[in-house]
């Protein structure tokens, strides 16, 4: 399977990897319980401040 040639199977595998990553991200994200409102109100500087 050459990744530098177009292959439908590679494309399907990539979509599956993307979906797997998305599921993993959302599960762990909800488990981590981030305060999204707080993150947004600090405009990305949340990681430098304690809240």
């Amino acid at each position, binding site marked *: 399977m050459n990744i530098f040639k177009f292959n439908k199977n590679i*494309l399907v595998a990539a979509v599956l990897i993307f979906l797997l990553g*998305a599921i993993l991200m959302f599960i762990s994200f909800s488990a981590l319980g981030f305060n999204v409102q707080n993150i947004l109100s600090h405009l990305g500087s949340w990681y430098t401040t304690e809240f």
Partner: protein
Amino acid sequence: MDKTDFLIDLQKKLKRYGVKNANDYLDYYSEYLDDLIESGLTDMQAIDRVGGVQKVLLEILSDEDVVIPETSKKAMGNLFLALGLPLWGPLVAALYITVLGLIFALLVCALAFGVAGVWVLISSLVVVFQMNVLYAMFQLGVALMLLGLGVIFEQLFILSGKGLFDSSKYLFQKFSPREAR
């Protein structure tokens, strides 16, 4: 130039312009010249009277009964196409460059997502030891999403690049003068 030379010259020129009913015109001018010669003119005087080969040729080509085959009309079409090049050329070039730009954008996306995916994947290993598994899982999820997007864009780049290459090759072969001969 006598009458025969005149008619041979006219025949050659009519053939070059692809006039299908050339014999009708040759017969007509042959009779016309005969009449003039019978009325007392010499061959040269008779030819001068009808206007010479070039003038007769122009008269024939502008005649409404002249039959010029389709290929000559096609050649005229090609001529207009070539003359219109300054008009449609930039439009086609702009379209081609736009498509090239879009394909290049796919390549850039593939590289960006791919590099970011690998970087986040490596850093997720650091996160396992520095923080905890839950954070590492979150980062791994993001890494897989980025890598997936990278491969999707890479495959789309290859597909569209091959499509453009094949269509350019087809058009080049179709309009290449070497192929047309």
